[in-house]
């Protein structure tokens, strides 16, 4: 067997954690692996997952956004109020919510780049401000119940079995094609993600179809992930963003408009956060004062970190969000199934976060100069 490098070990830690969690949960309660529960698990993680994608993007440029939870709540609140109280059509209401997110992200980034305040503080102030703004938007009742059929449909729709299989077929076909291309070009290490995607897709559809079918929300989430992945790895914007995260002054000297990258990524992240908020609202059928609470932010940041996005910036992929959200979600779902209290869930999440990031840090220690690159909040 080939020796496994420590860096490789660090990358393997999160998936390993996921496998262990699934094994343990199944051994304790076999219902964990039932189609119904797995479908519920996926529905539970899409909102956190979308917000975690936002966190990953911001981490990639070496910044932090503590306001993702509050912004997701605010955007969802705007959408809900416009739809319910102002009778706007669902599409327009959603666009207005997403625009709110974009504006908030631009505002944060403007203060970070123009005034020079650390993103940690700007978004901490944002967290407070937008939490208050959400309460103002919701008005005195504090809760807005969604009644628009289209808004409700986002999380309540399940694709027909045939459509599900079609999606699986497309993914598998794409995976096979990609494997062939990579093998011909002699890039065997690029093959594994595609092999994984090609095998997981049919299995997942099989499981979903055994219950209610592939949930639309899950498809939306996967499209977000795939889109985000393509943008970050294949476009100039994405590559410049990663360069900025690895070494901002190096990136600037190489001619990258670092400030513009920051503006774009912050705006994009806030839009993603709002997307998560709308997904959550559609699932809960309501937006209330606890929508987008600090808990959501903490879970999303934890998910991003567990998934392997480096808090030092410049390392991590959009898929970290999926992996991290799966780990956190499986823990919560499994513990709920066991009837454990929320106390145990919090402790377990904390322990997994510490373990995952601890392992990751040890694995990547060789890459960093000791003591010169200690993370400073907001950098």
């Amino acid at each position, binding site marked *: 067997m080939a020796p496994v490098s420590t860096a490789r070990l660090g990358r393997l830690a999160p998936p390993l954690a996921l496998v262990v969690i699934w094994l343990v949960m199944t051994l304790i309660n076999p219902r964990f692996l039932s189609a119904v529960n797995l479908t519920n698990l996926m529905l539970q993680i899409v909102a956190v997952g979308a917000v975690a994608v936002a966190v990953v993007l911001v981490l990639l440029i070496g910044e932090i956004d503590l306001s993702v939870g509050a912004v997701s709540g605010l955007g969802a609140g705007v959408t809900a109020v416009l739809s319910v109280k102002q009778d706007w059509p669902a599409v327009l209401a959603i666009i207005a919510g997403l625009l709110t997110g974009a504006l908030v992200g631009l505002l944060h980034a403007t203060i970070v780049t123009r005034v020079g*305040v650390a993103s940690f503080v700007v978004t*901490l102030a944002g967290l*407070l401000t937008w*939490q208050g703004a959400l309460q*103002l938007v919701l008005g005195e009742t504090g809760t807005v119940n969604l009644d628009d059929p289209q808004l409700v449909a986002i999380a309540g729709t399940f694709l027909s079995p045939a459509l599900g299989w079609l999606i699986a077929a497309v993914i598998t076909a794409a995976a096979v094609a990609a494997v062939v291309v990579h093998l011909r070009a002699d890039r065997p290490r690029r093959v594994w993600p595609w092999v994984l995607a090609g095998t997981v897709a049919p299995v997942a559809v099989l499981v979903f179809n055994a219950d209610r079918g592939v949930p639309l929300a899950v498809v939306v989430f996967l499209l977000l992930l795939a889109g985000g992945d393509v943008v970050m790895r294949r476009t100039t914007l994405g590559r410049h963003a990663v360069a900025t995260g690895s070494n901002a002054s190096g990136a600037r000297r190489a001619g990258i408009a670092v400030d513009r990258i920051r503006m774009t990524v912050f705006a994009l992240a806030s839009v993603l956060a709002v997307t998560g908020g709308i997904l959550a609202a559609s699932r809960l059928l309501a937006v209330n004062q606890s929508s987008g609470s600090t808990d959501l932010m903490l879970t999303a940041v*934890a998910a991003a970190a567990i998934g392997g996005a480096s808090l030092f910036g410049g390392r991590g992929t959009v898929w970290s969000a999926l992996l991290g959200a799966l780990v956190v979600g499986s823990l919560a779902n499994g513990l709920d199934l066991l009837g454990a209290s929320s106390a145990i869930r919090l402790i377990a999440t904390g322990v997994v*976060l510490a373990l995952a*990031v*601890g392992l990751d840090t040890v694995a990547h220690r060789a890459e960093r100069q000791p003591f010169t690159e200690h993370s400073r909040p907001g950098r």
Partner: protein
Amino acid sequence: MSTTRTAPTDETAARADLIDERLAQDTGLRGAADAFRRRVRDGDLGLLPVVVGLFVIGLVFYLQDVTYLSSSNLVNITLNAVPYGIIAVGVVLVLLLGEIDLSVGSISGLAGSITAVLVVQQGQPLVLGLLAGAGTGAVIGIAYGLIFTKIGVPSFVITLAGLLGFVGLQYVVLGDTGTINLPRTSPLAQFAREDFLSPAVSYVAVVVVVVAYALVSIIGIRRRTAAGLPAQSLTLVLGKSAIMLAGLGFLTYYLNIDRGWGFAVVFFVALVVVLDLVLRKTTWGRHLYAVGGNVEAARRSGINVNWIYISAFSLTGLLAATGGLMFLARLTSVSQASGSNDVNLTAIAAAVIGGVSLFGGRGSAYSALLGVLVLTAINSGLNRIGVDSSVRYIVTGAVLLLAVSIDAIARRARASSGRG
């Protein structure tokens, strides 16, 4: 110490000494005024914006409601500020290092719960309960410090994990009841709610503090003069002392119209003063600033960087736990909501508003005192006007942003004047 130094004999030596602004002390009243102007121009605003902010807050709310500045409301503000303030002092310590502790709220809640369970449910002696609660905080801090220095996980993540984990642990400690009430007759509750300095004692205390300040300053002048360094003038020291005496005396008189200085408030202020002295005058404190300013430089000049980190984190944990005990004492109960995210955000915001740089190496213990006064004053005012919590959140966020923006702009001025 001064005996080993030879006094400079000619004028040039004294002037050379003035080149380094940390050694320079302008002589005379005009010199002091000049130095102040120069500092502000170069972007070293210090505590000035916060003090101005406090005046503005007082004025705005006074115009809305004249009872805002009444003696009883001011006493309430001081009492409410104590628990947040003690936690904020701890946050200042980690921020000085350029690190962060996101879990101070959870630690405070956990410590309060442990003490409440031991004292109320299990009938242990109060002292034991307090020691257990505070000790928990210190041990958590040591653990953070060890993980941070030995493994190298960013403090942001360790304390985020801690935040989650310790909230959970708090639920476990509290058990099924979820809420534990501390009897109001308990000495702990008395300390934070009912015990106040008697008028006579408070005036004596004011005089003692001012005399001590004057004496220490005069000794400082003697030592600097003996070492041939320029010192501040005696008139200035006496003037400052007189202003201090008048200010503190009036404040004491005004608070005494109602209940006066609470024991808890005195405890908090004493804590801030002691910590300020420790930070500025001891080796440990100066090393802390050095590590916060530049870790690598500090390490190469032989400072035991790991020890500084571990001790600072543990002190932060200890202070957060102490703040939690103060919450328990002030609210006479602890529940699952104790030490919630609100506490976290308020304590961190207070430290930052008070003027601690998030980039490490700058700020003082007094930042926590002033920052928490700003936030508590705003809170009290908004509650009196009767606005709902949404406006409170927005105002707090805006004030936080304003404070850091001023700091960031001032930092640029500092950088351009070569004092980055």
